[in-house]
C-alpha cells in the first residue's frame, strides 16, 4: 500500500520537474530542473527493480548532464544570444492538444499491450554459460553483444562530430579551455579529495558488475565524471586531441571487443563467447570498454578544442 503512495508522489514530482524544465521562462532554471529530474528518474528505476539502469541514470543524471548543460548555459550567456520571441498562444494550444493526444494514445497502447512471457526464462536458462551472474551484464556483453559493440562505435562517431566543430586554429589543442583555480582554495581541495574515492567507486562498479548491479557503462560514467571534476579543479589538463595515447584509449574498447568477436568467428560464430572462458573474456572486454567510455564521455562533455595549441 505505502509503495503505491510512494510511486504516485514520485510520478507527480517527475512530471512537475519535466514540465518546469520544458516550459519555464528562465533557461537556467530549466537546466536546474532537468538535473533534479535525473535524480527522480534514477529513483523511479529502483521502483521498477532495474538497479543497473538506476546506476547508469544516477551517474549520468547527477554527474555528466549537470556539467554539460550548466556549462552550455554559461557559454551561451557569454555569447550574448538574443532572446527568441515566444510562440503565440494559438500554436501553443495546438502543440498542447497534439501532445495530449500522443500521451493518451501511448497510455492506451501501454494498458492494452498483450502480456508476453518476457525473456526472463531464456536469459535464466543460458546464464550459467554466459560468464556473468548479473543478467543485465550477460545481455550487454554476451547475448546482445552486437548492440554494445555498435554503441561503443556510435560514441566515437559523436566525439568525432564534436571535434569537427573546433575552429581550424585550435585543432590539435586541448579540448575546452584552460581552467584556473586558487591554490589551496575550496575548489582545489575538493579536486584533491574526491578523485581517489571516485576512482575506487568506478573500478568497483566495473569489477562487481558481473555479480551484482554495475558494469562498464556505469563505472565508465563515474570515472568520466571524476576526471571532469579533476579538470575543473585544475588538477589535470585534458590531453591534446592529437595525442597518440588519447587516441589509443578511445579505440581500446571497440578494438578489444572486435578482436574477441573476430577470434570467435574462427571458432564458428562472430561475437560468440565460449562458456569456459566467458567470465575472463567479459571482464577483459569490460575493462577495455570502461577506459574508452570514460575517455569518450569526459571529452564529449568538455567540448571541442577552443584554444590554439
Amino acid at each position: 500500500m505505502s509503495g503505491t503512495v510512494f510511486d504516485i508522489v514520485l510520478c507527480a514530482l517527475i512530471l512537475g520537474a519535466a514540465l518546469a524544465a520544458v516550459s519555464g521562462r528562465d533557461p537556467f532554471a530549466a537546466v536546474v530542473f532537468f538535473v533534479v529530474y535525473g535524480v527522480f528518474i534514477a529513483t523511479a528505476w529502483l521502483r521498477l527493480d532495474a538497479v543497473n539502469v538506476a546506476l547508469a541514470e544516477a551517474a549520468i543524471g547527477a554527474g555528466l548532464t549537470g556539467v554539460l548543460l550548466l556549462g552550455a548555459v554559461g557559454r551561451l550567456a557569454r555569447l550574448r544570444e538574443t532572446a527568441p520571441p515566444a510562440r503565440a498562444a494559438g500554436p501553443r494550444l495546438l502543440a498542447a492538444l497534439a501532445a495530449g493526444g500522443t500521451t493518451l494514445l501511448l497510455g492506451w497502447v501501454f494498458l492494452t499491450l498483450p502480456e508476453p512471457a518476457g525473456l526472463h526464462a531464456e536469459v535464466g536458462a543460458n546464464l550459467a554459460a554466459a560468464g556473468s551472474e548479473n543478467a543485465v551484464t550477460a545481455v550487454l556483453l554476451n547475448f546482445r553483444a552486437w548492440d554494445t559493440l555498435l554503441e561503443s562505435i556510435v560514441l566515437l562517431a559523436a566525439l568525432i562530430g564534436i571535434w569537427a566543430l573546433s575552429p581550424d586554429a585550435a585543432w590539435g589543442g586541448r579540448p575546452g579551455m584552460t581552467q584556473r583555480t586558487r591554490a589551496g582554495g575550496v575548489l582545489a581541495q575538493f579536486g584533491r579529495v574526491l578523485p581517489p574515492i571516485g576512482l575506487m567507486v568506478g573500478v568497483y562498479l566495473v569489477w562487481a558488475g558481473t555479480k551484482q548491479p554495475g558494469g562498464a557503462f556505469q563505472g565508465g560514467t563515474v570515472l568520466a565524471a571524476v576526471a571532469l571534476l579533476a579538470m575543473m579543479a585544475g588538477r589535470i589538463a585534458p590531453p591534446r586531441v592529437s595525442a597518440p595515447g588519447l587516441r589509443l584509449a578511445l579505440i581500446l574498447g571497440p578494438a578489444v571487443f572486435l578482436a574477441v568477436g573476430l577470434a570467435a568467428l574462427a571458432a564458428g560464430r562472430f561475437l560468440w563467447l565460449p562458456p569456459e572462458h566467458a567470465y575472463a573474456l567479459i571482464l577483459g572486454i569490460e575493462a577495455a570498454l570502461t577506459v574508452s567510455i570514460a575517455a569518450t564521455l569526459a571529452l564529449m562533455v568538455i567540448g571541442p578544442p577552443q584554444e590554439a595549441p
Partner: protein
Amino acid sequence: MIGSATLYGLCGAALVGIGLYGFVSHPGLLRRVLAFNVIGSGIFLIFGAAGYRDADAGADPVPQALIITGIVVALSLTALAVALIVAHVRASGHGELPEDAGE
C-alpha cells in the same frame, strides 16, 4: 490497487507528451535539447515498465540492457547537439533557428 509498472508506464506516456509540447512550443534550441531528452526518458520508462509487468519474475534484463545503451547514446547526442548550438550561436548570434526567429 495499481502496480508500480502501470503507474510508471503511464508516467512515461505523459513524459513523452510533455517533451513533445516543449519541443514544439519553445523556439530556444537548448530548450529543445532538454525536451528531446524528456521524450527519450519517457520512452525508456514505458519500455522498462513493460518489462516489469510480471513483478514476481522481476524486471526483464533485456529491456534493461537496451535502456542502458540508450541512456548513454542519448547523452552523447546531447553533447553533440550542445556543441552544434554553441557553434550556431557563435556564428549567428541567435539561440534559435532562422525559420523560428520571426514569428
